[in-house]
């Protein structure tokens, strides 16, 4: 039987190839760069999936989503601060769904159903959208209603609402829905059908003791939704402390994000300057030599002398990785000149010898 290479590859994945089939696959792979790459890449990803880095802190991950999903069985204290806004989005979404539905209902002539229950305007949508926007740049009022579907066509009163749509937030993850992760959404589905998914999801994760807010509870829910706005933003020392903690725990992605935030939002703070050497070293350890070099250069320019020796070492190592031998040699020499009795002296001299400079 003459098998398509895909079938041969699949059987190879299962360790189910006969010697003849294996030979045929090898011959094909010799001639086909694509299949050769596919097999190599598959092995690469498989090694990753089975390697030590595949270890996953499931409980931590679940704790992080516990808030957004309102799973109260998981200790809320374990929830990461960065996910608070998502939790907030879910609450806000409920409010917006209710208010939007009310507005749409009024527009479509079913005013009688809700008019008695919902005030003409509920001043909650605008502050809600603004409050959640900073980190993931969720939808804003000024953005075009790009995801508006035909059945979503709503009057200006509804469309103008600066809505953060929960459907947009998760629709990218939903294979049955449109893909629009965190993309601008100018309006939500102004029909009961559209309200339903959020309600269903909420019902799926909330205990029976916490009933879904009814339409006439909208102002009360709005008050709940508004609560996180009052939460003070972390200051530079808090971000610095969190970044260092994340780095020490090996969560370099999180640490990197926090360091960047510190440098972006508090560029002139002492913490930002102090973070440069350790951020640079972390990037260097993570293989991002160019990023590390930038941080080390900034550190030499801005920081005090406390970690200057280490910064100069890091800078030389970054230049080594970037294969810039002339600059690297100058960096090692500068280190030797500035700190002749440094613990790095021997390393610097050895490297300079390798570079043929001393």
């Amino acid at each position, binding site marked *: 039987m003459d098998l398509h290479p895909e079938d041969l590859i699949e059987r190879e994945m299962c360790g189910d190839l006969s010697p003849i089939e294996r030979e045929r696959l090898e011959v094909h792979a010799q001639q086909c*760069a694509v299949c050769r790459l596919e097999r*190599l*890449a598959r092995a690469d990803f498989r090694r990753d999936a089975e390697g030590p880095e595949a270890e996953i802190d499931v409980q931590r991950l679940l704790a992080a989503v516990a808030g957004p999903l309102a*799973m109260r069985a998981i200790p809320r204290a374990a929830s990461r601060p960065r996910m608070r806004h998502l939790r907030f989005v879910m609450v806000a979404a409920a409010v917006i769904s209710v208010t939007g539905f009310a507005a749409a209902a009024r527009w479509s002539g079913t005013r009688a159903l809700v008019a008695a229950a919902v005030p003409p305007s509920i001043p909650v949508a605008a502050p809600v959208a603004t409050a959640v926007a900073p980190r993931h740049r969720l939808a804003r009022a000024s953005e075009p209603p790009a995801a508006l579907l035909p059945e979503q066509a709503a009057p200006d009163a509804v469309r103008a609402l600066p809505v953060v749509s929960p459907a947009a937030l998760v629709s990218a993850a939903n294979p*049955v829905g449109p893909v629009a992760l965190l993309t601008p959404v100018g309006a939500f589905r102004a029909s009961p059908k559209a309200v339903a998914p959020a309600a269903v999801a909420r019902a799926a994760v909330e205990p029976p003791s916490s009933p879904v807010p009814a339409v006439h509870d909208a102002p009360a829910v709005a008050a709940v939704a508004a609560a996180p706005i009052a939460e003070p933003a972390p200051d530079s020392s808090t971000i610095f402390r969190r970044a260092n903690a994340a780095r020490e725990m090996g969560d370099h992605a999180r640490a990197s994000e926090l360091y960047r935030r510190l440098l972006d939002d508090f560029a002139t703070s002492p913490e930002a300057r102090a973070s440069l050497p350790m951020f640079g070293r972390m990037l260097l350890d993570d293989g991002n030599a160019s*990023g590390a070099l930038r941080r080390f250069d900034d550190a030499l320019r801005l920081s005090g002398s406390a970690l200057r020796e280490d910064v100069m070492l890091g800078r030389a190592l970054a230049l080594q990785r970037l294969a810039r031998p002339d600059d690297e040699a100058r960096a090692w020499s500068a280190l030797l000149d500035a700190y002749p009795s440094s613990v790095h002296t021997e390393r610097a001299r050895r490297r300079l010898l390798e570079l043929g400079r001393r």
Partner: protein
Amino acid sequence: MVCHYTGVADHETARVVPIVSTETPSAASPRSAAIELARTAAAGDVRATRRLLELVAPRVARTVRAVMGARHAEVEDAAQLALIGFVQALPSFRGECDPSQFAARIAVRTAGAVRRRARTRLGTLDLSADVDTLEAPPEEIESARRKAFIRGLLDGLPEEQSEVLVLRIMLGWALKDIATTSGAPLNTVRSRLRLAKEALRRRIADDPVLAEALDLSEVES
């Protein structure tokens, strides 16, 4: 018989256990405990939802890491969004495949979207960031290059082709499983994979320097 190396989660160690599954995910197969759990969760049972999340979380996390790279700055955010998306999508789960496969597909889409957004925001990603080029052996650097190449290709493909490529190459799924989980006919999946590989071939042919770096310079006619 099908196999995939991200096929099952060992919930004690939260690590991948390579499996060879004899179960064909189809509507006619007996309802597994996981499918029942998913149905219960979709009906609003909080405990079932939590247990289900514990079941699928390792696979979701691995999928996101595969698509984005383990050291991507937003990998954890993407995993969280994927889990939230999974719970949101549970009402649409028809039980035709394992819930963890359903979750993995959601994770593929979520991670792809987050990655594209990050790429748009941050510009070209540093391909060397996935490996310590000073300390790593050459094989590891080559491996990182290949993975980065595949990930880079995903951004330029139509979503269906990109998804098939991820499920096939990154996650090692059988074509039949991809068809079942995505609800597409098997021949459609084959066609998508063929088109994705054609794009891969063009990319290799268009960039001889990269092809040489990947040791792929012998492109067939």
